[in-house]
Each structure stands twice: as C-alpha cells, then as structure tokens.
C-alpha cells in the first residue's frame, strides 16, 4: 500500500493547565520516512496521538491524505494510519500472539492478511502460539508492531518502536520498516534511539517545549555536531566513526560505515 501525506496546521493541545503543543505546523509527504525526536515531555507522543484521533487538538487542523481527522473516529483512522504505542501492553489482548496479530484484519473481514509473513519478518513464529503476556516485554513490543504492520496502513506512526529491544530485534524492525518505505508507506517514528533514526529516517523533526525546534534532512542534522550538542545528543556510532576518521560519503547507517571501513588495516588489541 502506498503512502498518504500528513498535514498538521496550527495545532495546539493542553492537558488541563499544562500546554503540551504550542502551535505545530508540520507537513510530511507521502512516502517520507521521518523521525520525531526531542527531550522527555516535549510533546512528541501527544502530537502522534492527534494523528489517529486518540486526542483532539484544542486549535488547528490535522489531515491524513484527503481525510480531516476532526471528522473521524479512532477506529476509522486505523484503516489508514497504523499506530504502535510506546507501551505495547496497551494494545495486546488476544489469547495468543498469532490471534493478536490477526485481530485487526479479522475485524475488517480481510481473509488474505499477511499474518504469517509479518510474524516471520519480526521473528515471532516461534512464539506465535504463546499468550502475549507469557513472552518477554521486548517481544510483546514486536507483537504490537506486527499487529499494526499486518493491517498494511498507508501511514505508520510508531512511538519508540525500538525502546528495550536488543540489537537483533532492532535490526528486524529496521528491515521491516525499510520494506514498507520501499513500498511507499509514510513513516513517522518517535525515538530517542539516534542509531535507529540514522537507519530509518530521511528527515528528522526535533520538538522542544511543545514546538518544532528543528526540521532537517537526517544526514545533515546527524553530521552537525553543534546542533546535536545543543540538543544534548551524541552522534550515532556510524557518524562518530565517520567524523573521527573523515570517511567519505558521510556514513550514517551501520552498513555505510562498514563499507567505508572495509579494507582498513587493523591493529591487534594492546593489552
């Protein structure tokens, strides 16, 4: 399924007295891969929830493709926008992993949903018969993501999709998202994991205090030491290696750093 564009215009939102979004304008093109980063409490999660009608803005407008989110319910939005919560336990309820992943397509009467493919893609086949609460928390996170991917939405909104995952699990998530990206799906991922951001995003939007503080091409931001330092961030490993060794091509992804380092001469470890 190819992507839809997402437009957020003049959006504000407050939790009681606490203003979480103070005027957000953001346009994401169909098929773009965007990371949303920023300190805790910046408003990232709040913004993503407005995209699926889980919260309603106090001012401004959100559209996904030709849909105005103001006129849609969350279950209607779920046909177009797949949302993976930061905490997977908020969206798991079936008695087995496989049942949970297949829940959405079942509700919509889709007999041909790629449940087995998605289970395999995320390495979940060995646990497909287990109860979701009998698998470790990081695996539950993958189960929730699988339940979103299997719906084949045109927009993916993922809140901290790699938090708590080990390296192998993270690599599976990256590979799954790259496949969706190649198919033109729009992705917006909230993340603190700059290594993951480097692997999946073309563009990085930085939020701070309920506002957008930066909106730049991922490679440009990741190689801007000053901008990262101002945000309290360290470059991901591939970028640190690229900067320190002056590697050509400004690698941001691990595979780019590996390609640039191949052929290097290596010293034995000094004991």
């Amino acid at each position, binding site marked *: 399924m190819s992507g839809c564009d997402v437009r957020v215009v003049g959006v504000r939102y407050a*939790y*009681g007295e*606490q203003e979480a979004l103070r005027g957000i304008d953001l346009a994401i093109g169909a098929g773009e891969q965007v990371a949303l980063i*920023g*300190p*805790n*409490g910046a408003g990232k*999660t709040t913004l993503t929830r407005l995209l699926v009608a889980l919260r309603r803005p106090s001012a401004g407008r959100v559209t996904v493709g030709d849909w105005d989110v103001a006129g849609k319910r969350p279950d209607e939005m779920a046909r177009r926008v797949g949302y993976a919560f*930061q*905490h997977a*336990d908020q969206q798991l309820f079936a008695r087995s992993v496989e049942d949970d992943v297949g829940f959405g397509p079942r509700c919509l009467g889709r007999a041909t949903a790629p449940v087995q493919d998605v289970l395999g893609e995320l390495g979940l086949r060995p646990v497909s018969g287990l109860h979701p609460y009998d*698998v*470790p*928390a*990081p*695996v539950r996170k993958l189960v929730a993501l699988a339940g979103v991917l299997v719906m084949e939405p045109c927009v993916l909104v993922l809140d*901290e999709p790699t*938090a*708590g*995952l*080990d*390296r*192998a*699990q993270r690599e599976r998530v990256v590979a799954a998202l790259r496949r969706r990206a190649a198919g033109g799906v729009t992705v917006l991922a909230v993340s*603190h994991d*700059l*290594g993951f951001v480097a692997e999946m995003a073309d563009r990085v939007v930085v939020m701070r205090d309920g506002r957008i503080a930066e909106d730049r091409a991922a490679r440009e931001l990741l190689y801007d030491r000053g901008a990262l330092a101002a*945000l*309290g*961030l*360290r470059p*991901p*490993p*591939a970028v*640190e*290696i690229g900067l*320190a*060794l002056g590697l050509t091509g400004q690698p941001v992804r*691990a595979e780019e*750093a*590996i390609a640039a*380092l*191949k*052929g*290097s*001469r*290596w*010293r*034995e*470890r*000094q004991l």
Partner: protein
Amino acid sequence: MTALVTLEGVTFTYPGADRPALVDVSLELAAGDVLVVTGESGAGASTLLLVATGLAPRVVGGRLTGARRIEARRCGVVFARPWTQLTGLCPTVRDEIAFGPASQGLPREAVLAAAERAMERLHIAHLAGREPAQLSGGELQRVVVAAVLAVEPEVLGLDDPAAELDPEAADALYDLLPAIAAAGTAIVVATPDLERAARVATRAVALEAGRIVARGAPADVLGGTEVAGIARAAGCPPPFPLDVPALLRRVSR
C-alpha cells in the same frame, strides 16, 4: 568485601512454566559492584534481578533451588515499565518519592530530606508538584528511580532503566551509577543498551536461555555493541572494540 548477595547453583522456574528461567546461576554481589547482565530477550536477565533482590519467588511465586543468601537490609528494583510501580496513592511526585522513606517510619524531616535529595540526583525538582499520572514516560521513569533511591537500598536492581529516557537523561542516569555504587551499594543492571552499560560496568555476565555463558570484565563480555558489530563486519580481528574510541585505536588508515 562482604557479599551482599550470594547465589550458588540457583535455578528458578516461574509458576506454571515448563522450563526454568534461570539455570545453575552462581554469582556474588558486593558493595561497589556495577554488574551488567546482558542477553537476548528472554535469556533471563530480568529474572536474575528479581532473584538477586529477593522478589522471586517471594513476590512473583515460582520455585527456587540452590543456595541464595541476601545479606543486604534493603533491596530496591526499578522495573522497565515505570507506571507499574507507582503507588497510585500520591497526588504529587514529591509524595510519591517520599512514600518509601515514610513507610520506613522515619521522622517527617528525614522523609522530606530523602525525597528532596533523590529528586536533585535525578534532576526532577521541577516536577515535584506535578501529578505522577500526567507525566511523560521518561519523566515517570526518573520519578521511579528517585523513589527507589530515596530508600537507600544496599542492593539496587535496574531493569533497562533508561528505556523511556531521552539520550541526555539516559546518560545522566548511567553517570550516577558509579557514585551510588561507591557509596556502598551493589548495583545490578539488566539492559540491551550495551554502549551505556559498558561505560559504567565493573563486571558483566552474559546469559543464554537462563545460563551464564560468559562473565568477567565488561570489555570481554559485552561484545554485542553496535560498534563491535561494525568492527566485526569491517574485518577487525577479535576481540572487537566496544565503543568508538576503542575502534579508533584499532584502525590505522
């Protein structure tokens, strides 16, 4: 150094499970240790925290065999999902953090002082008057860490304590650990965040299917960092460097 926790050949099985989550685990924890426990999801790292701090089987049930001695007077655990350990009784962050010391029957001044000290350590004094339920995931995680530190545990178990934190707060949390350990606490951290763990660990163990498969210096055990993966794939001979400075010392261009 007296061991605060000793495990000898400990095997632990959760209630209803058909195989043990920990198998024949032996280790000691002493004041000053920052022991990092690593392994793939399901390898048993979180379970080791529960066993080492006495929560398993006492609270979670299950069956433990082998010998376990916990000499520590107080153990504290920070779980990976912070909202699971809020009291649900406290209208403000300050009250939430004061709950532990207050439960120990300390005088009011000591309770408040412990809460203030813990909030300062986690840089959350500005959240003191906020309602815990209204906080973001990362803010909440710092509140929970502060609440556990406020009771001054002798053994501190941290289960992926920075999973919800932004990188600055995550670095700040890991940077706190050496000083907490040096003040007389044994710390055990289960985390897939090997880069940060490698910076503060004094020792490390790796688990596979509940068994310890490697133990020793962090540089020898925490081989699964992203930098190590890059170095391995780029042709670096083992042992693989764990972080960028170590990689730079190994490559000559």
